[in-house]
């Protein structure tokens, strides 16, 4: 092989490697994008049915039900126009409580013929006063004023 051909081969090899790497990166990237939806967006059918996403809202008062004997828990996440039942098995974060804004990771599914969000991870922040900006955005009317889910107002008073 002449040095020139060897160099061309090397460059071709490098280009091939780089494009393989790029393809790998883009594919992994696409598969792992996690979009955020609010309960009313999910109710309106905007959320994907076959992909993992994030669901955020306020935990409705009186909705948290633990199953005795294991770590299964069910609760309802609500925004101003809708709500969504969530099921989860595991340890809830320190600041998970009713009325708190939280974000759950998971996908759509059904529990006893009812549509529900099956979460594999539940996050609440470490600060009492902090609310994830995405949840805060979900708690606004179309005109940008703050609102409260209907169920929350009664229970809170």
């Amino acid at each position, binding site marked *: 092989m002449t040095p020139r051909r060897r160099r061309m081969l090397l460059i071709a090899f490098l280009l091939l490697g780089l494009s393989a790497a790029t393809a790998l990166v883009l594919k992994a990237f696409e598969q*792992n994008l996690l979009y955020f939806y609010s309960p009313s967006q999910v109710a309106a059918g905007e959320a994907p049915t076959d992909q993992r996403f994030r669901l955020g809202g306020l935990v409705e008062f009186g909705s948290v039900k633990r199953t005795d004997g294991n770590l299964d828990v069910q609760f309802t996440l609500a925004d101003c126009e809708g709500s969504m039942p969530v099921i989860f098995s595991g340890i809830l974060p320190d600041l998970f409580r009713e009325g708190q804004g939280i974000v759950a990771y998971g996908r759509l599914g059904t529990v006893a013929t009812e549509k529900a969000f099956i979460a594999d991870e539940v996050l609440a922040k470490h600060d*009492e006063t902090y609310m994830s900006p995405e949840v805060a955005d979900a708690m606004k009317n179309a005109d940008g004023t703050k609102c409260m889910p209907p169920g929350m107002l009664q229970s809170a008073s």
Partner: protein
Amino acid sequence: MNMLPELGHFALCIALSLAIIQASIPVAGVLTNRPLWMRAARPAAIGQFGFLLLAFLILTYSFIVSDFSVSYVAHNSNTSLPLQYRISAVWGAHEGSLLLWVLMLAGWTLAVAVFSKALPRDMTATVLSVMGMVSIGFLLFMLLTSNPFDRQFPAPAEGRDLNPLLQDFGLVIHPPMLYMGYVGFSVAFAFAIAALISGRLDTAWARWTRPWTTSAWMFLTLGIMLGSWWAYHELGWGGWWFWDPVENASFMPWLVGTALIHSLAVTEKRGIFKSWTVLLAITAFSLSLLGTFLVRSGVLVSVHAFATDPARGVFILAFFAVVVGGSLVLYAWRAPRFKAEGKAGFFSREGFLLLNNIFLVVAATAVFVGTLYPLLADALALGKLSVGAPYFNTVFVPLTLPLVLLVIGAASLNWKRGNATTMWQRLRWVAVLAVLTAIVFPFILIGQSSLIVAAALMLAFGAIYSAMEEIYRRGSRRGYRKIPLASWGMSMAHIGLGVFVIGVTLVSTYSAESDVRLAPGDSTELSGFSFRFDGISHEAGPNYDSTVGKVTLSHENKVLAVLRPEKRIYRAMGNSMTEAGVLPRLHRDLYVSLGEPLSNGAWSLRLYYRPFMRFVWLGAIFMALGGLIAIFDKRYRHPKLIHAQTGSV
């Protein structure tokens, strides 16, 4: 009335004026050839450091005496906060961490001023000027938008609190280490700019730059490692790396910094890759700036955080544009004049180092895309999204394993022209040993193995043995005393890489975890270990109330330890924190964290078995130690002896 905070503010202003002198006069002296002006750099650097140290000490004092009329103190401290955390609270939030940043920048500048006596005067002057310019940017930012000495009247009777997450030894030292690394890359950056201005980039230049770059890299390595260790035992999730944007912000400069170290070695030894080295130095520092701003400016929480304080956002963007844009323009204009002094053959040490650089830079780009795309999408209203950790894992593993292969190959290749026969001669015993250990090791220590694990361990042990082989080969040929410290350091760091890969492979493959519900007296099994929950007790800490669980660990009816995982509520703000209970051993960690109280006195508990967790951090420590050893190489101290030893890295 206590005027100290005003004095601190005043010290910052003086430091700014000294920075302006340091940034302008010496470089003007270089351009007009006036030695007296060039000499102004050193006293200006010393003075700047003095005044910044004064400001820093005053802020620390305000924290110690809880002077809540200083708004920053009132927001981040509290009279019940223990003394050591009142001191570390100085860098616990935005304003104070900026002050720490400029203080370190001044410290590095001082070090360059003191240890650069052997450098040509114009080079020192330019380098110090460039560092002065960076300092001006940060001091202006601090004085205009984020003054740590701002007062508030009337002073509140009690402060808020330091974020309880930061009330931990790991987070007392993690930010300073990380910042030492970030800021340290400013030296490499300043040398790169000086090379662009002067047009001189030779072996001597690479020798001056190398120890500074290696020191910065060493600090960054330790800083990242401490962050990972802290997250492991403080967050209660049992993980050691989450691909969180905050972690990625520190990892990107590390990847590019690692590429820079290797590229500098080639530039020193072979006089090639010159423009590339300069570009890497600029990139490493730009990413350090990006990291600082990403973490502290609030932009990660939301790009709209900028909207609440537009001055900060605009200043950051402008400063970033000046540093990155300015240096890239200078680069485009001046870099073409650097001439390579030789050719790179592919099958040689420099050829392998080139590939290493490509992999590292591609890896850094992948992290960059995954970290910044969500911010971009949010800013452009494309939707609210985040990039999940699986993305980083899928991309990262195939990109980094070839790197280990390159380390093995490079250790056996000579500069200029390598030779496959010699390579094989040098590596065959390494290969045999690596294969044997890779097969036996997991069976003996964990009791199981798989093809993928064996393959990854083969690479890891290959890196360790080939590093040892190189030292042995050179030591037996010419005596171990003749081996330069830089080579000892390199081998140490590569052994560290091997240890790290062993840790990552085993901990990510054979970890077991379980979330369980246990009533007092109940026990459960995980990976052959028995965890018995003996109930909880309540204890009071200095500034928090704690619920302490008692978990007895045993193995084959022999009690190993009693772990005490905690759930703390900090009184000042009512924040809660989880402290895991860990039984650390070299070959495995057993880990318990408290979940939440359930009915009938039962608790939810998170249990982990993590084999070889310590190897991950130990590997990082070895890498940093390698860096430390390399810094003391003789040839960096006498950079005038240019045509000295060859064959060392």
